[in-house]
Structures are given as structure tokens and as C-alpha cells.
């Protein structure tokens, strides 16, 4: 297909898988955290907010190193997960997904929180007086109304996951076929003599991928806004 080699397809598939899994697994938690931050005030809220935002301001390498210390084979959390549940993140593609999820998490939470805060809460109260339980109102009113923010947050996090480099390479290293995502592969090619052409090919793929993600996001957001009757008519 367009002269893309099987190796390149493998790199691309791995990158998409890592980004997709990271987004799918972090979305429910992001919605929960965003809802908590948008709707409730509780002691330590500022701290929670800061921790959520930490990956945004920390050097990614630091995040990766922290993951390595905590979730590495001999780390305090990693060893427990390995012994009790047989779950290993270190040097696996799931670890790359975890690193992507963590790096994209603040972007996701921010976008969802903003759209939750924009909802007129009296609409939810109206739904309660019509017989909707808290949970049903959340599912039938709050979530659909927050959909533009959820879409934006998901795509931002997805794009962040595709581009994730520092945390990934520090935590799960650069193993072809297992943890070598698109940015890691590009980096690797630039480090070998004569690899520039291959790096360029992958870079073009990355650009195309990003454009497709952006366009999809734009299209989905417009669609959901039209569904909500927010378009200018």
C-alpha cells in the first residue's frame, strides 16, 4: 500500500494500538475526575488538580523514570502487580500505553471539565424533578451534553499518545515490535547512518496521521454540536 513496508505497517499498528488502548482505558477515569473537579468542592481539591496536571508540566523523562521506579519489575507497585495479578508493564507495549495515558490525562480531564462546567446545572435539576435518578440524569443528560468536550479530550489525548516519546523510552525502552512506536522509530532511524530517508518516510506518515486525527475531531465535534442544537441557525 503506497509502498509502505511491512516494518512500517508494524510500527504504525503498534502506535495506533498503544494510543487507542491508552485513551480507552483512561477515558472513564478522566470523566470521573473531571466530574469531581467540576461539580464538587472537597478538601485537597487543589492538590488533586495539581497532581492531574503534573504530567503536563514535568519533563516527560521524569514521568517515565517515576513509572520505572514504581512499576518496574522490582518497584513497590510493579512487584505487587506481577506477583499477585501477573500484570507486567515494564518493557511491554502495555507500559507504553500506560505512559501515553498518563501524559494525555491532563489534556483529557481539562477538555471534559470545561464542557461539564458549561452545562447549566438547572437542566439536570429539571431532569431530576421529572423522575430521573442521579445516575440516570448523569447518563442521559450530563454525558450527552458534555460530548463535545469528551470528543476533544479523547482526540487530544490520542494525538498526545501517538507523539509520546520521553516517558515511553524511559519506562519501556525502545524494543522493535513491542515498544517501538512511531516517534521512537523515527528517533532510531536518525541515529543510524543512512537512516534519514526512512525517518522522513515515517515523519510523513506521522503528519498524515495527525491531520486525519484533527479532521476527525473537528467533524465529530461539529456533529455532536449539531445534535445538541448548538449550531447557529
Amino acid at each position, binding site marked *: 500500500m503506497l509502498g509502505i513496508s511491512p516494518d512500517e505497517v508494524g510500527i504504525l499498528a503498534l502506535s495506533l494500538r498503544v494510543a487507542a488502548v491508552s485513551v480507552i482505558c483512561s477515558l472513564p477515569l478522566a470523566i470521573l475526575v473531571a466530574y469531581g473537579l467540576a461539580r464538587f468542592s472537597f478538601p485537597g481539591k487543589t492538590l488533586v488538580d495539581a497532581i492531574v496536571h503534573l504530567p503536563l508540566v514535568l519533563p516527560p523523562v521524569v514521568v517515565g523514570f517515576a513509572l520505572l521506579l514504581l512499576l518496574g519489575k522490582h518497584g513497590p507497585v510493579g512487584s505487587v502487580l506481577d506477583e499477585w495479578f501477573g500484570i507486567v508493564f515494564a518493557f511491554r507495549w502495555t507500559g507504553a500505553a500506560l505512559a501515553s495515558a498518563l501524559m494525555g490525562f491532563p489534556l483529557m480531564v481539562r477538555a471534559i471539565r470545561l464542557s461539564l462546567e458549561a452545562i447549566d446545572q438547572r437542566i439536570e435539576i*429539571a*431532569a431530576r*424533578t421529572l423522575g430521573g435518578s442521579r445516575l440516570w440524569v448523569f447518563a442521559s443528560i450530563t454525558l450527552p451534553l458534555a460530548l463535545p468536550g469528551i470528543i476533544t479530550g479523547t482526540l487530544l489525548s490520542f494525538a498526545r499518545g501517538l507523539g509520546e516519546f520521553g516517558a515511553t523510552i524511559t519506562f519501556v525502552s525502545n524494543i522493535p515490535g513491542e515498544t517501538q512506536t512511531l516517534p521512537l522509530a523515527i528517533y532510531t532511524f536518525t541515529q543510524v547512518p543512512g537512516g534519514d530517508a526512512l525517518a522522513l518516510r515515517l515523519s510523513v506518515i506521522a503528519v498524515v496521521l495527525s491531520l486525519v486525527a484533527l479532521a476527525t475531531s473537528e467533524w465529530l465535534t461539529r456533529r455532536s454540536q449539531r445534535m*445538541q442544537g448548538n449550531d447557529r441557525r
Partner: protein
Amino acid sequence: MIDVDIDQRLGTFHLAVRFSADAPIVGLFGRSGAGKTSVINAIAGITTPARGQICIGGVSLFDAAKGINLPPEERRVGYVFQDALLFPHMDVRSNLLYGQKLRSPEDRFIDEARVVELLGLDAMLRRKPNTLSGGEKQRVAIGRALLAQPRILLMDEPLAALDVPRKTEILDYIERLRDELSIPIVYVSHSVAEISRLADTVVILSDGKCVAVGDVDEVMGRLDLRPATGRYEAGSLIETKVAAHHVEDQLTTLAFDGGELFVPQVDASIGERVRARIRARDVSLATQRPEGISILNVLAGCITAVDAGAGPIVDVQLAVGGATLNARITRRSLQQLGIHVGQNVYALVKAVSLDQRSVGYA
């Protein structure tokens, strides 16, 4: 039957309201900040009072002493908000059915077809809320509340966001609900015109307290409630029957035990009860029956009270047959005519001052 007895602190505002009312439409009247919305929020379960009880039609929704506090979704209280608050992501039909789907079939007393017919929603079922006018939105909001099969309908200034023609339209629809459904309505407003047209019993709130409960005509006419009902809004309500239509003049005569009133044509059949609201500033007084004037309504009455406030304007109350009429005149006129309690006078009311909005079905 609506029984409310609640105490609630809302910031620095203290709400302590106690009233019982039993009427098709109970008006909750007071100036802004009097606590009207706080009362119906407590009835709907949106806020929780510190003390007291709320009982609607024999069902206890809240009783602090007994530890009863039903959540809003279990109270079956229909709430129509000032600005409709339709669900923007659903079309009109989905909005209407939202509550109905959540109620068990044995609680249903009204179906979709009836609501659509009552509120004239047929043409807009597939439309999204953002394409509706303010009046249409409010009609959908009323229909949505009704289909949630409520025990009672709470309306919080449902006309406040509408222009005058829309207000009249919604008032007509609310009157239809009152006449055709047997669901009690609590109607919150700071407008004397709306309350007097719709309500049978009125609860007057002032500064978080209930200052009067009673028949609309009686309570709204009381001079001692002026601080709560507002001086500017002063007026009187007269229960009348349609006596005759004068097709050639496009006038209608309304009869009551103090005489007859000419008003611009009213859309009601002869013998039907209607309520006329006469603003105090539209009533002039004369000590003798005047001759050669354009004013059609000249009513003989007797002065029963003179408001002893300061300032250039004086409110005077007079008995015209069994009805009470308020007149607003200058202090100068009061002195020049020597008006005093017990005096027989003539009240003059221009027919043109009684427009469509001041005459409503009783």
C-alpha cells in the same frame, strides 16, 4: 391540599413559611427576594429545609421530625422553570417523553396525545428546542412536566422571559389546564395581573415570611398588605358575570352586585363568570353623579378606608355593592372633595382601561 411549614437558612436569608391552601391554582406572590422560588424549590426537593414538613394531597414529601425527605425524582412534583430548561440535545417529543418513561404505568393519568392536544404541540414534535420561540419552549416545558405525571405543578414565573403576546398565549394555555385537568398548580409570580387572573387562593410572601393567605380578591385588595403587594400594582378584582354583548360597539357588559361594567368585547358567553381587574389609578372619584362625560362606567359606592400614608398620592377604598374597589387619587383631590370614610361617592372607570389582559375567566 397543599401544606407547607418550613424553616430554612439560605446564606443570610431566613425562610420561615407556613401555609395551607386548597385551590385549583394557588398563587405565590411577593416581590423579588421575598422567597417565592425558595419555597417551591423546597417543595420540589431541590433544597432541604432545616425543619418542618411539606405535604401535598395527603402525601408527605418532607417531614424533618419523622426523617422523611423524598429525593426530587420520587416526589412527583412537576416543575416549570422561568426559562423552560429544555434538554437541548433532544427533540421536542423526546423532551416530552423524558419523564413519562420514568414513571410506572399505574401512576399515569395523562398521555402524550392529550398533552399534545392541550398545549398545541403537534407541529413541533420533531423540532429541536433551539428552533422554538420562547412561548413554544414554555409550552413544551409545561407538557414535559405534565407527562411526568405529577401530583402538583409548580410554575416559577413561567411568563417572565416572554413578550406580551406570548404571555397572553401561555396564560390561555394555563387556564385550559386548570379547567380541563384536575391537577393543582402553584403559580409563582410578582405580577398582580397574572396572579389575579389565574389564582383562586393567594399566598403573600414578604422577606421570607408568609404575611397573608386567602381569597385573591380579598387579599390583593387589602391596604395593610401594600408593603408586600406593592403600591404601584394596587388594584381591585371584581367577580362578575357576562351580562350582554354589544356587537355594534364591540363592548361587553359585566354585571356584579354593585352595578354594571362596560369593557371591550370579552370572549366569553353570557352568564359566564369572569374576573375584572381594575387598577387603582384608573379609578376617579366624584361626589356627584357627573354628566356629559365620556366615561361609561359610573358606580355608586361608599368610602370604607383612606390610606394614611405620606406623599402626594392617596389610596382610597370603597364598597361598591359587595365588591371592594381601590382608587388612587392625589392628596389635593382628597382635600378639595373632603373625602372621608362613610361618604357616598361615584367611582368612574374608563372602559378602555379594562383591556383584554385585565379580564379573565373566573
